[in-house]
């Protein structure tokens, strides 16, 4: 069964550094998402992406964040200058967009900012 994959599984970085989190959505899916979960808290929406552009973003998704689909398979989240409060689990999700509308999540990337 196809699944969403994410790399790396764990990323440790220094405050102020740039990080890129990578996701490979399910191949025939058209809508892509990033969510964040700070330890012990609920999952929060960051951004959605469709047809090579952002379709919606939350207030969390400020100028430090960007997303890109550099080729036909990868979907990336870049944090330009990481802060301590960016430490969280980052989930990528995708959905087909044909009316079934279930989002399938990847295993997540645990980001630790020191």
């Amino acid at each position: 069964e196809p699944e969403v994959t994410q790399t790396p599984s764990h990323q440790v970085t220094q405050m102020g550094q740039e990080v890129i989190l990578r996701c490979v959505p399910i191949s025939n899916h058209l809508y892509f998402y990033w969510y964040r979960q700070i330890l012990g808290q609920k999952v929060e929406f960051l951004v959605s992406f469709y047809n090579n552009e952002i379709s919606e973003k939350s207030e969390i998704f400020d100028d430090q964040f960007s997303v890109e689909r550099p080729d036909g398979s990868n979907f990336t989240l870049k944090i330009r200058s990481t802060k301590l409060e960016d430490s969280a689990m980052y989930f990528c999700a995708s959905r087909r967009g044909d009316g079934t509308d279930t989002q399938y999540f990847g295993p997540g990337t645990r980001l630790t900012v020191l």
Partner: protein
Amino acid sequence: AQTVTQSQPEMSVQEAETVTLSCTYDTSENNYYLFWYKQPPSRQMILVIRQEAYKQQNATENRFSVNFQKAAKSFSLKISDSQLGDTAMYFCAIGGIQGAQKLVFGQGTRLTINP
């Protein structure tokens, strides 16, 4: 804006018992989707069950079923014959049918199944 509330931070039952997790939500939309996701210690988000708001029939998936009360904006999850592998955080979520269809999650319920 859509909101989801899970009023039970933690629950604990014995193996083989039935347990019900509560979820209430608020939305101004008439059509939407509701989901229960399971998050085991590995922290992966796994879809348990989904419900379309326009369907009156409650969704079932093996040992998992929902009690969807649209007027009351309630969406509880029932787990029958609970198993040790059901131990996880359970998140209720709502998604719209228009636009980006982002999911809005509740705070989660930590469910422990005891042997």
